[in-house]
């Protein structure tokens, strides 16, 4: 039974990916390109060590963003504002990190803490508005995104900029102590070529820690239990003593705190500052990854890697004179297809169980009932 359930739950993402490939193929055929050529070029390009490092680098922020979204999802809260939360958190973290010089681990820790704090506060506004004024968090977090963009522009140009008059607005660069060394030695240690021109970001370690934290929080703590209970049956959760308002605020703030760390990998390993052209859209793509991975830590990690793979491998398409934007369609289709597929699979499981239960009761095999209906 367990194996069958696992296969069934794998069925949904697999069929969604296949469906996305079909849609992408149709789009490519429609513009007169050969999809097989395109996909095989993508695969070849994406399986070099350099590409693998790049894929992991791309997956890190997506994974963290997905975790942030998933924490909210667990209790039916939609934090659409991860985008604004991570950007404003990165701005403050970059500003602080560029203006201090400390012992390296402390320096890194301070930057991370600032990011977590700012992200939590920014998300907390939405939580606060929800519990005191009844404003739906979907709308408020989206509005807070736009407000964050403006706030960032204001702070960056008036308060936090490093050199007045410089064309590219940025905060002061991190000192050597505020940088995390890369992990390229892993490749050589495992006997592969070192990635050329790309550094596997050291923040990967933190991302893995976040994944473990998420798993423990949700599955192994009282808070996580209350979180899931509130999501599955708010009424029952309240009756069993969970304070719903406190839950909403805490959950939003934890989600925002995690969101604050989304783009730190870039900051520690690459840019060493918050810059005007700081990478965007991780927040929205993170939602897609959370949906794809069904809020499970492993699932989201795989989803993030899949998206990282798609984005990296798309780079080769331009050289092949094929529009690389087809990958964006694939990402959109995967998300939509996967939620539909999960729904269909769930119904299949449900129907099977109802049928099994009906069969079992008909034959009055009491032992069988217990076995077949067990979830």
């Amino acid at each position: 039974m367990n194996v069958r359930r696992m296969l069934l739950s794998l069925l949904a993402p697999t069929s969604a990916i296949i469906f996305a490939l079909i849609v992408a193929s149709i789009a490519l055929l429609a513009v007169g390109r050969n999809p097989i050529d395109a996909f095989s070029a993508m695969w070849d390009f994406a399986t070099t060590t350099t590409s693998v490092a790049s894929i992991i680098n791309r997956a890190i922020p997506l994974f963290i963003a997905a975790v942030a979204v998933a924490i909210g999802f667990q209790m039916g809260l939609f934090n659409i504002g991860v985008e604004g939360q991570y950007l404003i958190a990165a701005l403050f973290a970059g500003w602080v990190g560029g203006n201090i010089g400390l012992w390296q681990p402390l320096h890194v820790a301070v930057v991370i803490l600032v990011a977590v704090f700012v992200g939590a506060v920014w998300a907390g506004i939405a939580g606060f508005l929800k519990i005191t004024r009844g404003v739906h968090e979907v709308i408020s977090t989206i509005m807070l995104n736009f407000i964050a963009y403006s706030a960032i522009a204001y702070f960056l140009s008036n308060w936090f900029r490093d050199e007045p008059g410089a064309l590219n607005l940025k905060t002061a660069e991190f000192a050597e102590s505020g940088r995390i060394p890369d992990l390229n030695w892993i490749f050589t240690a495992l006997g592969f070529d070192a990635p050329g021109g790309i550094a596997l970001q050291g923040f990967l370690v933190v991302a893995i820690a976040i994944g473990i934290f998420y798993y423990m929080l949700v599955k192994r703590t009282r808070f996580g239990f209350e979180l899931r209970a509130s999501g599955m049956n708010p009424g029952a959760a309240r009756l069993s003593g969970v304070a719903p308002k406190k839950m909403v605020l805490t959950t939003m703030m934890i989600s925002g705190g995690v969101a604050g760390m989304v783009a730190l990998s870039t900051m520690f390993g690459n840019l060493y500052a918050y810059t005007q052209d700081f990478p965007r859209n991780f927040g929205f793509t993170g939602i897609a990854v959370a949906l794809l991975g069904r809020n499970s830590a492993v699932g989201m990690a795989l989803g993030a890697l899949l998206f990282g793979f798609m984005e990296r491998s798309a780079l080769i398409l331009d050289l092949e004179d094929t529009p690389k934007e087809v990958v964006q369609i694939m990402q959109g289709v995967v998300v939509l297809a996967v939620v539909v597929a999960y729904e269909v699979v769930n119904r299949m499981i449900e129907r099977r169980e109802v049928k099994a239960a009906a069969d079992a009761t008909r034959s009055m095999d009491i032992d069988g009932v217990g076995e077949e209906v067990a979830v």
Partner: protein
Amino acid sequence: MTNHLDGGDTLLPDTAEYEPDVDAKPSLLESRALRYTALALAGVLLLSVVQAIAGTTELTSSGTWAAAIRLAVPIMLAGLGGLFSERAGVVNIGLEGMMIAGTWFGAWAGWEFGPWYGVAFGIIGGAIFGLIHAIATVTFAVDHIVSGVAINILAAGVVRFLSVVVYDADSGGGATQSPRIQSQIGTFDVPLLSDAFNWIEDQAIFFLSDLAGLFAGFTTKMSWLTLVALLVIPATWWLLWRTAWGLRLRSCGENPYAAESLGVRVLRMKYYGVVISGALAGLGGAYLVVVQAGIYREGMTAGRGFIGLAALIFGNWFPFGVAAGASVFGYADALSLRQGEAVHALLLVAAIALVLMAVWSVTKGKATGAIIQGVAAAFFLGWYLLTDTVPTEVVAALPYLVTLLVLSLATQRLRMPAADGLRYRKGEAV
């Protein structure tokens, strides 16, 4: 109305008083309309007062009003789109994506064939994504918000792809924008009225000229498409509240299982609602392109679909309420285009409005509310007095700040359709 209780039941002398309840509906509407008109007039009066103090005319000039109308229309269309969908019980976060589709298809067809074709294709583009949302939420019973979020991601990807494919270098477009639409949709002045209102506005009479400015905005150089869009408001009201079809659609949003038991084809009605929703959001997108910008640019919707949703909530899921909400956001948007001093004067508007609210709270005996409002009023007053301009970034954030503010003030006494956002599966009544 024939009431069977009227005949013999003398124990209910009150029936005479109950009965008008049904007949009184139009008069209730009238009084509500009266109340809102009074409120709007009071708003204009407040703006006039502030203008007199601050020495600007930007808050109520016909130019500002005209811009406010232009900017309110796409938000209103998205909001009315949301109305159709949510009245049928399907939450539509995908409005933004449908609007994006509307902007892209509107710009493409507008460039290729002409502006009215742009409008038509914008509607179709939005409706296609509406259909996808309907398939996911209605047929497959996927969570509405999840599907909506996915629609937004998908729409952004699809239009990006289409841009790359369709626009080559010679066309003047590219991955992130379309070529400019050559011809425009015509505009018209309402004869006599336009001149009259503009003349009154030029006289610079306190309040009266400001009011005339508002009317001048509505009667001068109005695009035919704006007129069409404005007509969608009463059309929506009539369709949803005065036809059997509308009653059926709304019943799906209130209690689909009851509707089902009365023979309403719930799934089909939900499809209608969501597809119309996409079509209207697409029209809003096309309007942005055809009337406002004349070109498609990536990200040009800038969250207007979401603001439309906010307008829907603000308007308590009623068409005229949606229009009112959209006007507030459109006005904020228009001022953000006018820059510096207009927004600076708005600080004073906020301060005075908060003082009035604080006074209201005191009369209602809400001490904490009054204190918070008083402190906020002092903050805005101080800001107004201590500065001469407002940072451009604050100006840019204004529509979103107003949205948050309005929702925080308004959400609690609203009632959304009872079965809005709930998943419905045929024949599964509990």
